[in-house]
């Protein structure tokens, strides 16, 4: 009996337990209420279906969640990722679309499969701009000593304005096929964005867990002052973490704009920052910082994305889905809170004592 209780405790204490449970519950719901949810068919040489769609759309969120996890682990938060997604998307598309040169072009020319800048420059420029945004946040937080929430709020408010400036207030459409591969391509029958997200996850995992960096981040999240006193360069680590978050948002912006083949400064990445934070919270990383798990955050992103996709599959209007998302999140938060855990532990103990 002690054996089983021990494993239950171990299971419950694992950071992966709750997000996996949430994911399982959503998938179970779909098993009964969404016909055809598990159908996977082969279309044009690649897999297609709701599950593949979740992986495809979820990769943007996964990337944001990876960057956000590191930021939240230091006890901060980055509210600007949605705006950075818009900026990155705007930069990449404005470089591709020949309309940038302000020359008169016919609609025929506009839908030609061309780019005015080599693709690698577009990608590098977009990532660079996004990284700079992250660096700016990092400077405000680490050097300016401004509360992370407020410091990133500034870019969240101003960021969409900057994206508008880049696109001249227009929705920029691109017709450059190689660029589409980033967000729409398929590799081995699976969506290409998934591979990008997995690659970034692996690199980040190696960086955080095979070097001391992850430990430094956690130590700052638990107690910034004592980490500083024990010789960790607290400021620089915060700077790096925010910069990395901006970089991740930059990749997400590329995938996002490539997926919808356009960049809309007003709506690209709208509310994504909230989804990313929620993914991390569902992943069990505390908002106050400290212990983090990248894998749990990635699963958290999948939970959010499957909730959204389920809403659509059931037929809830896209905008109305957020009400249910809000409720789901609230339930998850309440499940995670110390008070509920206390009650749960008591119940389990009582049941254990009775048997």
């Amino acid at each position, binding site marked *: 009996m002690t054996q089983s209780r021990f494993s239950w405790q171990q299971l419950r204490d694992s950071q992966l337990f709750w997000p996996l449970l949430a994911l399982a519950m959503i998938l179970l719901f779909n098993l009964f209420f969404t016909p055809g949810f598990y159908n996977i068919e082969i279309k044009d040489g690649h897999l297609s279906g709701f599950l593949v769609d979740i992986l495809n759309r979820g990769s943007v969120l996964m990337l944001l969640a990876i960057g956000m996890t590191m930021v939240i682990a230091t006890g901060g*938060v980055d509210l600007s990722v949605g705006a950075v997604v818009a900026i990155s998307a705007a930069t990449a598309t404005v470089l591709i679309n020949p309309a940038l040169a302000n020359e008169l072009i016919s609609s025929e020319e506009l839908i030609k499969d061309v780019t005015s800048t080599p693709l690698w420059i577009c990608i590098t420029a977009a990532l660079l701009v996004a990284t700079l945004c992250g660096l700016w946040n990092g400077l*405000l937080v680490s050097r*300016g*000593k*401004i*509360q992370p*929430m*407020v*410091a990133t*709020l*500034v*870019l*969240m*408010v*101003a*960021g*969409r*304005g*900057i994206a*508008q*400036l880049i696109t001249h*207030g227009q929705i920029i459409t691109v017709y450059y096929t190689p660029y589409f591969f980033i967000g729409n391509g398929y590799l081995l029958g699976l969506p290409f964005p998934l591979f990008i997200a997995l690659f970034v996850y692996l690199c980040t995992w190696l960086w955080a867990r095979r070097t001391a960096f992850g430990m430094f981040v956690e130590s700052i999240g638990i107690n910034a*002052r*004592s980490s500083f006193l*024990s010789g960790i360069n607290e400021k620089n680590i915060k700077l790096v973490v925010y910069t990395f978050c901006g970089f991740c948002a930059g990749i997400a912006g590329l995938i996002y704009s490539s997926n919808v083949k356009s960049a809309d*400064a007003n709506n690209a990445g709208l509310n994504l920052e*909230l989804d990313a*934070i*929620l993914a991390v*919270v569902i992943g069990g990383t505390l*908002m*106050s910082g400290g212990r983090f798990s990248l894998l749990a955050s990635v699963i958290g992103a999948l939970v959010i994305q499957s909730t959204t996709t389920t809403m659509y599959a059931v037929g809830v*209007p896209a*905008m*109305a*889905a*957020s*009400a*249910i*998302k*809000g*409720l789901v*999140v*609230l339930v998850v*938060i*309440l499940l995670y*809170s*110390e*008070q*509920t855990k206390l009650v749960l532990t008591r119940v389990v103990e009582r049941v254990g004592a009775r048997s």
Partner: protein
Amino acid sequence: MTDKLKIDRKFMPLLATIAVFALLYLYGFSQYKGMRQPQAFFNLFINNAFLLITSIGMTFVILTEGIDLSVGAVIALTSVASAALLEIYGLNPVLVIVLMLLMGTLFGGIMGAIIHFFKVQPFIVTLAGMFFARGMCFFISLDAIPIKDPLYRTMALSRIQIPGFERAFLSLGAVVAIVVLVVGMYVAHFTRYGRSIYAIGGNEQSALLMGLPVGRIKISVYALNGFCSALAGIVFSISLLSGHGLYATNVELDAIASVVIGGTLLTGGQGYVFGTLFGVLVTGLIQMLIQFNGELSSWWTRIAVGALTLIFIGVQSLFTSSRKKRQALGRATLKESESRSAVPIEDKLTTDSA
């Protein structure tokens, strides 16, 4: 002498905001003919009435070191729900207004209760609340609902003459906003409730030890903010005479920016409701200047408000750095005594490495 210096320091952010407002207004006054009419000034109140109302609620929340991201969504929900109740169900407009205010108060109260009882960060709870309220709008109606109710129409068209000015007037919403401002100032500075809010924002632990009902006050502050948001929503739907779920997006950010520009510290415990008025006026004025300019695009408003918020946060941290330093020193000594048990481990580590 030192006392006088202290007061100066306390009022500094507020004075800075008023100075910024005056300078911006003078600039507009010299540049644009349209701004020389007194009505231009009153238009600031008319256009930003709903923002002022919700920002005053937000000021109270921020004074307790909290935050409420749901206000914009609550405004939208109020507009949709009231439009639906009036037009589809044909309810009495007065009843609708009362119902909406109740709904807002209840919504805020529930969020406050979750924040207090489950000890979850206000940021996350109100974020979920925002999602919920926005989504509910679209459960009620996917399209905008026009309001044709006669009472709403009369209220929308009513103009209140200002004594002393020939052709200057205020809308009903602006008058409501000013009343809310006066009541807010009274509550914050002249009642026991207001003092308690400042005490909780200053240091929650000591407020609790002092015997203040911290939980009750915190919950009521969120309920109060919910009430203000619902009231702002009513003013908003009267001015637009329709309701839709996409109205008032980003209002929560504007409200927070206005409160910060108005000199209230995001760390709680310090600030003035009166300052929030100027925060709102400054953001409104920037918008107005950009409109008068005509060449600059409207997205410059967002950039300018963002930049201004940043500057004011900088000013704040300058003026409060000495206070914070003292506090941090106190906290550090406290933490040291708390975490004695950690010391041997550190010692061990150093000996190991040695």
